[in-house]
């Protein structure tokens, strides 16, 4: 099942631009990125930022208007058939399951990817077990919930996995118990040498699992960063204070920024030097009954995301 082309090559995008016919603006603009084997890359960004278009160009169903996508030295734009061999994709809208059970669907894809029948069946059962959906393995697709369909769709993408895995929003609709199973599985695949590119809006989960974040905005790469680089960039902490309704806050401590949301939560972004003063201040608020509770945490990817994209 393996061939002459050497494995574990980097996937590189060179100035990839895509403008759809009759579209006023480019979906992707001059994107240059390199994804390496063993990396779990989170592709994040607003709706319409160009994330799915980027994946579709890698798998070869969308052709770049300009630029090139290479796996090692082989151009995937010139050879879309090769793209489909080196990569598999979990679509944004889950894979169609009409008339088939999860076991049948996953087995079918594993066989199409080259596994013999017994191996395909075993792989499907292992995936079903590791995603915690054994109870529904023989239930027809039409009767599955959205989350179960998405998990099945995920399993179809990673059954007999090729070197590059393109996964579009794998945990949408999935319950909180099974979401970590998906992320753990993705992590294992990356550790096994696969290049894993995940489109997601779930920043909390990404923060725990990804090696690298790529933030797209309006079709361009706005941030391409590792967690360490991001931590250095985010030398702030966030203090959230739950203020008792109807009470006035006499004064504020020194803080980089502060904001009050609709629920009466006061949020302060703090530089390291501002933290001691802010803690003293909030303890006083709690002691005098002005605040009910507080939480101090390092700046999250979510708050950074909001800050970088400026809420757009």
């Amino acid at each position: 099942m393996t061939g002459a082309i050497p494995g574990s090559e980097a996937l590189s995008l060179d100035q990839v631009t895509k403008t759809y016919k009759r579209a006023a603006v480019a979906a992707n603009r001059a994107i240059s990125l390199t994804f390496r084997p063993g990396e779990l890359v989170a592709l994040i960004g607003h709706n319409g930022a160009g994330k799915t278009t980027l994946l579709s160009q890698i798998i070869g169903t969308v052709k770049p208007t300009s630029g090139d996508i290479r796996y090692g030295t082989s151009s995937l734009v010139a050879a879309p058939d090769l793209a489909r061999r080196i990569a598999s994709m979990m679509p944004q809208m889950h894979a169609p399951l009409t008339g088939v059970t999860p076991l049948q669907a996953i087995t079918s894809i594993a066989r199409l990817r080259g596994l013999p029948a017994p191996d395909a069946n075993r792989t499907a059962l292992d995936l079903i077990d590791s995603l915690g959906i054994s109870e529904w393995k023989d239930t027809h697709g039409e009767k599955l919930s959205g989350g179960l369909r998405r998990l099945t769709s995920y399993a179809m993408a990673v059954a007999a996995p090729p070197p590059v895995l393109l996964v579009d929003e794998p945990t949408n609709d999935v319950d909180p118990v099974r979401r970590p199973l998906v992320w753990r599985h993705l992590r294992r695949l990356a550790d096994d040498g696969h290049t894993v590119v995940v489109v997601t809006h779930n920043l909390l989960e990404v923060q725990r699992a990804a090696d690298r974040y790529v933030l797209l905005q309006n079709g361009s790469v706005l941030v391409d960063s590792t967690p360490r680089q991001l931590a250095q960039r985010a030398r702030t902490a966030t203090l959230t204070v739950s203020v008792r309704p109807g009470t006035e806050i006499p004064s504020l401590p020194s803080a980089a920024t502060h904001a009050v949301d609709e629920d009466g939560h006061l949020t302060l972004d703090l530089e390291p030097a501002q933290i001691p003063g802010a803690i003293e201040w909030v303890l006083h608020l709690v002691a005098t009954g002005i605040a009910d509770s507080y939480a101090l945490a390092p700046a999250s990817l979510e708050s950074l995301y909001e800050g970088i994209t400026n809420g757009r």
Partner: protein
Amino acid sequence: MAVDALTTPTLAVPRARAWFISWWGLVRWSLTRHKYLLPAFTAVQALFAVAIVYGLALMIPDVDHEAARYLSSGAWTLGIIAVGCVLAPQIMSTSKQEGLLDYQKTLPVPRSAILLADAVVWSLAALPGIAVGMLAAFLRFGLEIHIDLFTIAAVLGAQFTAVSIGYAIALWLPISATSLATQVIMIGGLLFSPITFPADRLPDWAVILHQFLPFAPLGDTIREATFRTGEDQLLNVIVVAVWAGTAYLAAYLALRKRK
């Protein structure tokens, strides 16, 4: 979680698989997806053939041998047109709507295998209907029906042509227009094509038009293959081959097209 290039395992690129293996994998998937619909479809096709042989004969008071040959071969041809130009495009439209086609396009399988997997499944499912139609024609009219390699080639060729036309329609037209186009084909095929009646009943211009549309030549070749009246079929075969080749190429190019 930094990636260490030295300790990261090396993965090889999967080799391209033989066309037939990919095609067979898609056929198996199609059979699994349609396991309940296929027997029902086969039964309906058989009823359709019997209904035309017996039903249309009721409209004609004295069915002579020529009329019987037209009614019988017309029933089989209309069955083939119904599968290829109505059912196949509707199934392809459903695949487009459900995202199955887009999903299949991401799999490591040849585009031609995608095209021919469902086509073969539905064409084979239609064969019992044609066989029942032949039996009905034999019982109703007592006709001598030739069944040999030439007959089988004519039927399979007609099925390939009709399915290719249907897929070309479904892959190039929007879903709503596909539905309309298949209805027009079925009404035109059933009522106005010289398939169940001789062409000389139509005005000259319609006869010429039908000589270059695919449906009447399909009917003529199937009639000749099953009844051997000695009519020359060269022009019909050429017309059918051109339609088959053009439609298949159009469908194939539509599948290969990248957005």
